[in-house]
């Protein structure tokens, strides 16, 4: 009985927390998205679709499109960089694996905002990298790194890479090496082993990692802001501006709802693919 009471308490308190701080505020956002904008009182309690009309303008679609591209690019770069790393890590001797994971988690002890400022210090015109390269005589004049597309990608990938590596690491570690031997025995060259055995069998990790990078990349606004110099508007920036700058809460709420819908679509795809991976027997191979 004590056990079940503890379980009720544990589950119940978490549910309460989520309800108070996530569900209810979010319901407010959904509600606001259908209300009328009032310059004086912020919100007027009249049903109005102006918020949605406003965001389905070409401007917002461009913002959406650009956000998706940026998130997609970040995901692809993280995957290409994270897969080999996760693979090597998962095949290392145990103590080294633990060390590698620890090194990857340590940066989380610092706020990502502060780490983004650290990137600025590295990349700015008279920053550490430029100073070092100049003093070594490798370059004549400072490289233009900060406030470029590249800087935005560097920042996003740097912040989100662990979310790619961890699920990849888990699924690569579960990979049965005997299957690789079996494929080699049947005449498969390395590239075939990779494309036909390793990739399909680690697909749950690839999908999970991609989701965990893609979704935050869609919403993170301060990294493109700080490193990209706020030259391009992203969904995150757009929402922030609607609330804080133009004080158009219905439009901001509507954009939030759209962002949520997009994310839910991707989560649904994730759900489908992980279920498929499961029914294809991953569970039985332990």
């Amino acid at each position: 009985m004590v056990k079940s009471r503890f379980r009720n308490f544990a589950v119940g308190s978490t549910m309460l927390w989520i309800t108070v701080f996530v569900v209810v505020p979010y319901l407010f956002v959904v509600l606001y998205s259908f209300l009328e904008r009032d310059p004086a009182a912020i919100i007027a309690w009249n049903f109005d679709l102006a918020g949605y009309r406003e965001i389905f303008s070409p401007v917002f679609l461009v913002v959406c499109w650009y956000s998706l591209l940026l998130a997609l690019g970040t995901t692809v770069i993280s995957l290409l960089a994270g897969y080999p790393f996760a693979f090597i890590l998962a095949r290392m001797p145990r103590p080294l694996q633990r060390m590698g994971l620890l090194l990857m988690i340590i940066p989380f002890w610092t706020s990502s905002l502060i780490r983004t400022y650290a990137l600025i210090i590295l990349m700015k015109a008279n920053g550490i990298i430029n100073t070092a390269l100049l003093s070594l005589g490798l370059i004549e004049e400072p490289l233009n790194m900060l406030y470029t597309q590249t800087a935005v990608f560097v920042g996003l990938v740097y912040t989100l890479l662990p979310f790619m590596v961890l699920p990849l690491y888990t699924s690569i570690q579960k990979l049965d090496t005997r299957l690789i031997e079996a494929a080699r025995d049947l005449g498969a060259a390395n590239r075939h082993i990779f494309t036909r055995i390793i990739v399909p069998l680690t697909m749950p990790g690839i999908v999970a990692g991609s989701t965990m990078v893609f979704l935050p990349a869609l919403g993170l606004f301060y990294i493109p802001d700080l490193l990209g110099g706020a030259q391009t508007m992203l969904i995150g920036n757009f929402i922030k501006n609607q609330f804080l700058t133009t004080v158009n809460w219905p439009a901001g709420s509507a954009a939030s709802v759209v962002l949520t819908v997009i994310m839910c679509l991707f989560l649904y795809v994730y759900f489908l693919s992980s279920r498929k991976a499961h029914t294809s027997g991953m569970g039985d191979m332990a």
Partner: protein
Amino acid sequence: MEKAPIVRLKGVTKRFDDVTAVDSLNLDIYPGEFLTLLGPSGCGKTTVLRLIAGFETLTQGEIFMNGSRLDGIPPNKRNVNTVFQSYALFPHMTVFENIAFGLRMKQTDASAIGRQVREALDIVKMSGLESRMPHQLSGGQQQRVAMARAIVNKPLVLLLDEPLSALDYRLRQEMEIELKRVHRQLGITFVFVTHDQEEAISMSDRIAVMNQGAIEQIGTPIQIYEEPKNMFVAKFVGEINVFDAFVREVGNGSAVVDIHGRLFPVQNRSRFGPGSLVKVLLRPEDIQVTVEEEWSGSDPSLTGRVDEVIYKGKTVDLIISLDEGESIFVTQFFNEDQENIIYREGQRVHVNWLYGWEVVL
């Protein structure tokens, strides 16, 4: 066997760090034979298989296949295929795709793949299950798919790494017969690894008994069982009773040995001299047991008391403790003219054997 060997292992040694798994081993495998590497776990039998497959690199020695050296050739370029102990079926592929995998790697065209996969499925009696996923199959069915996946490539040599060890007893016996049939049907050379001597004896053309990285004896199942060359082989392959003896007299190809003060004539192929200490080995089924009341002969015999009677249906197993203290294990077959032989615990018995049925080491 006069034919040239299909696989020749010459002075093959494999060390893992400071453990020697295989120690300068020589072995010729002939085309079309069913050769079993039999030995306890850790004797190096699986390592030999993995060396032939190419999963391990040689520390020393050479492996030849059809006369040309195999070392340095990666597993995917060797004309051998393996049936793995764990089956190692690809969990994300259907039965068809699993079997087709090797053919696809060889760029076989689609219609030929379809035909050959169906043939292979037919051989292992799995037709109609092409579209199943491995996890939907029973252990025995997975075993058959693993077989089909290997034989569809028509390898020169098929390597089988304890493929039956995960199956239950009934299924294992069924698969033994199936394996034999597939071997006959295809005519491919089979190299089979097992620690199960019954499996080895019932399936093999030749058995190589391995111990500590070396071959103790190689020969037909009958040779291995009836003429073990040393104590290891004698004890590993089947049950055996061992008597300490010493040689009293030596004749022409025979000898008289003293066991517990009684003199028995035995064959003396190893030419032991008078006075040498030897071991006389007898299989449980080669020992004759006669109850005291019926004992009439003057033949030499050992006497003892029945300790335990284990009725096995077609045989009865007896544990007899000899008057000298040691325990022996005897298997008696029921036969027509001795239908009423019923042993009881506590019965006094005489134990002997026919000249020539013993092994003297």
